[in-house]
């Protein structure tokens, strides 16, 4: 089958056995790959009510047709599972070189099933597949694990590993790769830890069949040329995602002190410009990337090296915690990556705890003696370790802000910044209604990458509540995640503004199937509805209430900064949902109607 490595590897960890099966042609036709494969297998194979950390849950790693190909950004793979953080769908995208190597080993997907009786790592070298003892690696941090494998096996091996956070099944543990890339959100690392899989180590030398080699070369070169010629490439490479720190601060979108405001008085200390001048030593890209957004940094203060920080970490570990020093953010980034926890959820959880402490809800008796004032650097570093190791006060924070605030009560739920249990990424949405809706309806919880609409808010009027805004959010939700389906990175389109139609001939040349963006968006729509059905299937009473944003964004206007005094009214929140459900073809409780399911041809899939 052109465009596919051809096999799906199932690893039964309980029995220690492997099965390779052909990549199903009908699934490839209907769901293409990546997160399309992920939600297909998740819905079909993980039984209703499965414990996210139990043997029935699966961890599904999938590439797409452009993964590992000479197409800009062809270095992405998707990690799908039932999320321990939320109890719903998790689909975490990871860059780097893992997915290319996986395809060269002949695999489109790897599905981890069951639970190993002892710590293991999965070793793959083309057709040689083994589960090897990982007892000696258990307990080690991610950088050490990756370093050991690289030294032992060679640089050509690609490694995805969990740290202590994953081993301890912290609800937002991540999976680390290439010393600085993560499958970050939802607790995919906890699922890997629950299965006692410390790492996946792989290498391959096989080819991927291509339908039309000449057309593939031509389309690939056209994409690279578009990137090379793009106005803005120079700045993008120089600053990466940190380009937006300054701007977010100006427009009131920079999360500040647990999202109580959107502008930070110390923001200059964490600007992209400051970071480039103070700590960045080189740029770092993923497989086949012509516009590397990764920045490799050295902190003199801490005598340490780290990939990053990128914008989300700067927002959550910087301004959100009252930190105005980019070296502190870089060090917090390093600790989280090395210990294997998501910087976004960790920064959010610590921010929530700091606000509780500031309000007198927590005292030093609760916090293991830590003085949890905003800006306390040592307390932040200590807490990251406690969360990853599930020690003392870190146990509560490792559950995420939804569960933690429910346990503590006392009104702390109102400033627990999450949707559906996933902590919000780094855009404050007090007055940006399209972005607020994007977070409310995102298929994994409050994450930005499915639909990012702040500039659109600013362009058309940030407090407007109109059908056009809702339509924009839905279009983005159907379109942007398709990059995760085809196995590519969206950033060349997002930030370099290259023509997305250039991907169409590339995909056709590789797979032999012509798909316009209109066709691809229909696949995106189907996938979006499938994730919604998964949430509904797994959570009794799932519906409208789950889509509501944190009360902070409709009750608690900032008292400082660019959005001072600004808020989105609850009635507008509900109007947004009404319009969204109607345009999606969902009922008033936010569930796809039978007619919508039939129109999308999903009857058999969700039956």
């Amino acid at each position, binding site marked *: 089958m052109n465009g596919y490595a051809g096999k799906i590897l199932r690893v039964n960890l309980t029995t220690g056995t492997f099965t390779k099966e052909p990549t199903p042609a009908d699934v490839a036709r209907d769901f293409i790959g990546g997160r399309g494969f992920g939600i297909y297998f998740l819905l079909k194979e993980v039984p209703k009510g499965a414990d996210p950390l139990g043997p029935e849950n699966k961890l599904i790693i999938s590439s797409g047709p452009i993964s590992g190909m000479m197409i800009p950004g062809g270095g992405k793979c998707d990690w799908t599972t039932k999320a321990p953080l939320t109890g719903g769908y998790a689909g975490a995208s990871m860059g780097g070189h893992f997915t290319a190597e996986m395809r060269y080993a002949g695999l489109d997907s790897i599905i981890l099933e069951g639970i190993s009786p002892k710590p293991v790592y999965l070793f793959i070298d083309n057709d040689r597949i083994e589960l090897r003892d990982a007892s000696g690696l258990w307990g080690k941090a991610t950088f050490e694990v990756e370093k050991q494998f690289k030294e032992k096996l060679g640089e050509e091996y690609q490694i995805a590993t969990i740290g202590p956070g994953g081993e301890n099944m912290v609800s937002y543990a991540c999976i680390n790769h290439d010393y600085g890339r993560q499958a970050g959100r939802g607790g995919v690392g906890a699922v890997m830890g629950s299965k006692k899989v410390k790492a996946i180590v792989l290498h391959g030398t096989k080819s991927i069949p291509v339908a039309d080699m000449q057309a593939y070369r031509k389309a690939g070169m056209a994409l690279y040329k578009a990137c090379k010629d793009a106005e803005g490439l120079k700045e993008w490479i120089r600053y990466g995602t940190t380009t937006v720190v*300054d701007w977010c601060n100006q427009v009131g979108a920079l999360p500040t002190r647990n999202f109580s405001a959107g502008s930070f008085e110390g923001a200059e200390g964490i600007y992209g410009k400051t970071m480039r001048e103070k700590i960045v030593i080189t740029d770092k890209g993923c497989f086949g990337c012509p516009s590397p957004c990764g920045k490799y940094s050295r902190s003199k203060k801490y005598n340490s090296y780290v990939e990053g920080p*990128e914008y989300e970490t700067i927002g959550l570990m910087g301004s959100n915690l009252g930190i105005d020093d980019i070296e502190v953010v870089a060090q917090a980034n390093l600790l989280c990556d090395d210990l294997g926890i998501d910087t976004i959820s960790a920064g959010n959880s610590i921010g929530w705890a700091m606000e509780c402490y500031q309000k007198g809800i927590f005292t030093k008796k609760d916090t293991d003696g830590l003085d949890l004032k905003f800006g306390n650097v040592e307390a932040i570093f200590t807490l990251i370790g406690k969360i990853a190791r599930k020690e003392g006060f870190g146990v509560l924070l490792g559950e995420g802000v939804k569960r933690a605030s429910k346990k503590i009560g006392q009104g702390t739920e109102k400033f627990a910044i999450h949707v559906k249990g996933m902590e919000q990424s780094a855009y404050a949405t007090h007055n940006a209604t399209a972005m607020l809706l994007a977070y409310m309806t995102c298929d994994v919880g409050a994450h930005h990458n499915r639909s990012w609409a702040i500039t659109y808010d600013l362009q058309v009027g940030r407090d407007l509540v109109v059908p056009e805004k809702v339509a924009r959010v839905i279009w983005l939700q159907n379109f942007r995640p398709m990059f995760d389906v085809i196995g590519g990175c969206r950033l060349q389109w997002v*930030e370099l*503004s290259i023509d997305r139609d250039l991907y169409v001939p590339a995909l056709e040349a590789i797979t032999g199937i012509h798909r316009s963006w209109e066709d691809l968006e229909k696949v995106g729509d189907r996938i979006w509805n499938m994730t919604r059905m998964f949430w509904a299937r797994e959570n009794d009473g799932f519906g409208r209430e789950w889509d509501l944003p944190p009360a902070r964004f409709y009750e608690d206007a900032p008292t400082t900064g660019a959005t001072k005094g600004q808020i989105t009214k609850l009635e507008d929140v509900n109007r947004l949902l009404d319009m969204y459900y109607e345009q999606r073809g969902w009922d008033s409780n936010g569930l796809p109607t039978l007619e919508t399911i039939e129109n999308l041809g999903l009857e058999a899939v969700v039956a």
Partner: protein
Amino acid sequence: MTASIRLSDSLKNLLGSEGLFTIEAGHSVREAIVSLGINPDLVAVVSVGDEMQSKDYLIQEGDTVRLLAVIGGG
């Protein structure tokens, strides 16, 4: 006493605008942006030479000021 302003492809697409303007030096970037009819909030990055500058930067003769939008986030 002139300088030029170049818009990134992302900003051009956002505004449906041409990409190169000649302006008088001596004004701030913010003033120049407004004089071109562009909403300053839509400009995420101001770059002169290799350095990011604020919108308060005073444009010098011969400068090429590059303006970028952020249309997609991460």
